[in-house]
Structures are given as structure tokens and as C-alpha cells.
């Protein structure tokens, strides 16, 4: 049982370090077991060193840095057990434009070998997608799907200005 956990930990940690470096341009991060000899008696720490800074525990990073780190952890798990289909619902909401773009580019690169559906309000993300669907609420409380939408149809407000085909 302990060897099983350690094997999973090693593999996911390797993925995590690689993915965090991709998403944070020159940052470093790693997973650490509190008690490597008896892993079930301790927790799992995440240490991250954003570019130009000292190593910090997850708790003292900024809001955006924390969510980027958590996302790298999720991607590391996904790559350990690959699936043909992924759904990501507003995972970019805490990120600034540069980080949102890095995440979207990472998803785009992975979408050649698996199908990704991503819910997002951010232009930086919509720009990378192969297809964009618009969803709006009609006045009777029923959701209406507006099919293939061009990025130019999506206003700053996230509203679909013109229904496309």
C-alpha cells in the first residue's frame, strides 16, 4: 500500500514540476510528502517558487499564483491517468491575461490527443479554441445555445451579440 502511494506520488510529482514550469515561465514547484517514510501519517505539501521569488508554501502565494499551482496539480493528475475527454469549468477565473493565455495554450497543445471542453468568460482563452459555443438565457428561464460563434461576436460583457449558424 505504501509502495503504491509512493509510486503514484513520484510520477505525479514529475508531471507537476514540468507543467508548473510551463505555466509559470521559469518558476519551480514540487510536491512534498510531510512524512515520506510513513506517508499515510502525514499530508501533502505544495511548495512553489514563482519567477524571481523565494520558495513559498501554497498558503502564502497570491490568489492567482495559488490557482495556477492548483491547476498544474490537476493537469499533473490528468496526465498520470490520461482520458479521451476533459471538461474544465472556469478554471481561468483568478488568472491575469498572461496566465490565462498560458493555460489556454497548454490546453490547445493537449487537445490534439484528447477532446477538451472549457467553459470560460476570458477572451485570452476563447482566442485559442477551435470552436466557440455561446449560451444565453431566454426571458422564460430556458437556456438557448447559439452554435458556432466567432470571437468577434462575443462582446466584452460575455454576451453573444449575433447568433451564428
Amino acid at each position, binding site marked *: 500500500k505504501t509502495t503504491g502511494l509512493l509510486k503514484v506520488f513520484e510520477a505525479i510529482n514529475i508531471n507537476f514540476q514540468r507543467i508548473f514550469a510551463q505555466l509559470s515561465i521559469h518558476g519551480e514547484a514540487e510536491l512534498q510528502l510531510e512524512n515520506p517514510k510513513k506517508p499515510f501519517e502525514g499530508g501533502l505539501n505544495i511548495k512553489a517558487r514563482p519567477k524571481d521569488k523565494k520558495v513559498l508554501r501554497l498558503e502564502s502565494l497570491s490568489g492567482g499564483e495559488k490557482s495556477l499551482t492548483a491547476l498544474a496539480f490537476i493537469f499533473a493528475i490528468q496526465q498520470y491517468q490520461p482520458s479521451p475527454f476533459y471538461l474544465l469549468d472556469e478554471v481561468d477565473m483568478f488568472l491575469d491575461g498572461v496566465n490565462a493565455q498560458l493555460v489556454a495554450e497548454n490546453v490547445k497543445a493537449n487537445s490534439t490527443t484528447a477532446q477538451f471542453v472549457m467553459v470560460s468568460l476570458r477572451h485570452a482563452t476563447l482566442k485559442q479554441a477551435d470552436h466557440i459555443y455561446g449560451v444565453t438565457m431566454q426571458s422564460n*428561464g430556458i437556456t438557448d445555445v447559439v452554435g458556432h460563434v466567432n470571437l468577434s461576436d462575443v462582446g466584452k460583457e460575455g454576451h453573444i451579440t449575433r447568433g451564428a449558424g
Partner: protein
Amino acid sequence: MHLVEIHLENFKSFGRKTILPFEPGFTAITGPNGSGKSNIGDAILFVLGPKSSKALRAGKLTDLIYNGGNNRKPASYCKVTLVFDNKDRIIPIDDDVVRLTRLVKISPADKEQYYSYFYVNGRSSNLAEFDTLLAHARISAEGYNLVQQGDITRIVSMSKIDRRRILDGIA
């Protein structure tokens, strides 16, 4: 193998028969707050059969049935079908297309009672068969391939022990 369509009928805010086509690659869904984006994710999870209805933001399964909004009659059932392209036979069913359907119906005799039906390509099935078919495809309601709204915040604020438990679950 990829998801080709989702058919929604009276599922949450989808109070009309709606067919959502999907292509391989990267699809983004956008729209205003409360317009129904996350309900699409919930529809996928509904078919995959998560262990609890809390994951679908519903107190009980019948909360998933279209409630009529501000001026229509509430529906008596909700139905979702996931249509997969199975030409590569990753799902162990000998068919180019696999349709997984889940239906929840309020009992006509007693509003508090409901029936839950599962179908594979139109023939009656059950959650256990869904589990087996989807396990082959590595698509599961409990895995991290479906990241719901708020999961990121949850991971950031969970305790170190809970974070380690994520790895226990994978081992």
C-alpha cells in the same frame, strides 16, 4: 473515441429538447452568468452517475428536472443522452456509435417518488454497466478529468491531509 453530441430534455435550465454537437479538439463555451454553462457539465456528470447529487448542485435528483422558470409548467421528467463516436471500439460495445441515456421521472402517483432509468443504445441498462463501459474509456465521475466550477478553490483551501488523500484515491 470522442463525444459527438449531448441531447438534453428538461435537464435543469434546458426546458426544451436541445442537441449540442461536439467536435474533437478544443471547444470553448461562453455566455453570461446564470445562462446555463455549468448545467452542461452537470448533464455529463448526471449520465456518468456521481455518487451524490450534491455534485450536481441539487438537493435531490428531482431538483434536476426543469422547474418551469417564472411562467411555465414544471416538467415531470429529465433526460440526457451522451453520444460517443466508438469507431476505435474503446468502449466494449460492437457499434460505431454508443448512446448512453439516463432518465429520471417523477412518479405520477407520488410527487416525492421518482424512477431512474439507464439505457445503452436504446436498450435498458443500469449504473453498474455504465461504470464498466466508461471505465474502459477512462471517463469517470470521480476522476479529475471533469473539473467543476469551484474545484480549483477547493484544492487551494483543503488541508494537507485531504490533498494527500487525492493521491491515495489514485493509487
